[in-house]
């Protein structure tokens, strides 16, 4: 699984950070999404899928491999 995040669309709701803080963070000055990992390990993948569903701005997408 590979994740991509569109920080132009992101509204900084922080839903992804609340869901999987090991994968998602927020930039200190912009407030928008920062990916800490682009290829989450198996244990993180369910949470990443939840984060995609919860993102109000639909800024996250998953590329399954």
């Amino acid at each position, binding site marked *: 699984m590979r994740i991509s995040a569109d920080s132009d669309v992101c509204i*900084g709701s922080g839903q992804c950070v609340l869901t999987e803080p090991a994968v998602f963070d927020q930039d*200190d*000055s*912009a407030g*928008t999404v920062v990916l800490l990992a682009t290829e989450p390990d198996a244990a993180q993948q369910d949470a990443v899928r939840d984060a995609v569903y919860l993102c109000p701005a*639909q800024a996250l997408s998953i590329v399954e491999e």
Partner: protein
Amino acid sequence: MTTPDVPTFPMNRTCPFSAPPEYEELRTDTPVVRVGLPGGQSTWLVTRHEDVRAALTDPALSSNRRNPGFPLRAFGLRVTNDFPQPMIGLDGAEHSASRRAVISEFSVPRITALRPRIQQIVDDAIDDLLASGPPADLVRTVALPVPSLVICELLGVPYADHGYFQTRTAKIINRTTVVEERQAAVVELRSYLDELVTAKEREPGDDLLGRQIRRQRDEGTEDHGSLVSLAFLLLVAGHETTANMISLGTLALLSHPDQLGLVRDDPATTPLAVEELLRYFSIADAATARTATADTEIGGQRVAAGDGVIASGLAANRDPLVFERPDELDVTRGARHHVAFGFGPHQCLGQNLARAELTILFDTLLRRVPTLALAGEVDDVPVKQDATIYGCYELPVTW
């Protein structure tokens, strides 16, 4: 035109904990339905969770409150003014630019950094509660002061003026306020904040408004009127909503002792309980209103350009396809996919501040006042059936 078989909106909650009973039937039979508003305007009402999410991410639906089809009458008679609209009334790139300026102020890491100060504010409010009873009114001692003080410090608004902005906010959100009184409340609050922003422009401090002034100067985008609109939005939205969730959340926990026990016995449950309480009450049910600016489709229903749309957060959050036993309060359910903060690009800016305040408040209140109980009957609690943001006017408690 309103005809007898067209339901009217808003619909009333029948007890402090219920959704309007009409929502269940609408969700099943006519999930996107034409409803009549007071005064004869009509609008679409969307009641399924999936459709509410779709509507709130549909670029054909505009948030501009000045579109003629906007279902304003759901909120009572509104005044018209030409003040710059804050971000809640903007669309697309204009909205994005306006929101981007402030999102870092409300990010998860920034709010985490505010937690120690929020804890102090909560501790002080509970001291006040304990000193003024038993019995005492939780709204006056805790529910209103905590979020008011937090948002004042964040924005840089003097808390000493809380009486001024709280009374005017109460008039603005009450649907039964007559139009002249609402106009006066808006103008008075606006001119108060106009003077405050002017003072900050002379001497910008280390607070949100001061930081916005400096950022605008750096970028050459100084805009006094928009800054006053931002202050207005954040001050009103920042205290009234959380205050109502504190009082209603406390009422719900005191009325469901098994659920209260789960929260008191394990602090790890509190964040889950906060999400569940947000879902259960969905206090800003009709705040997610839009107007179609192009023909579109919601849940299979054609919606024409110019039509108003209300995407009901409360109906969506009681959708049994998404939440099992939706009318039961279950603090252990994972409810984070609720739409109590809305959905789409306008989802609540202050949601993580609200989460932090509510989590700290319930954790502290239930442990410091373990014998807390309602003083009186649930049915006697005066609820805000007449306001666009649901809540209670008073919550008499004892211990």
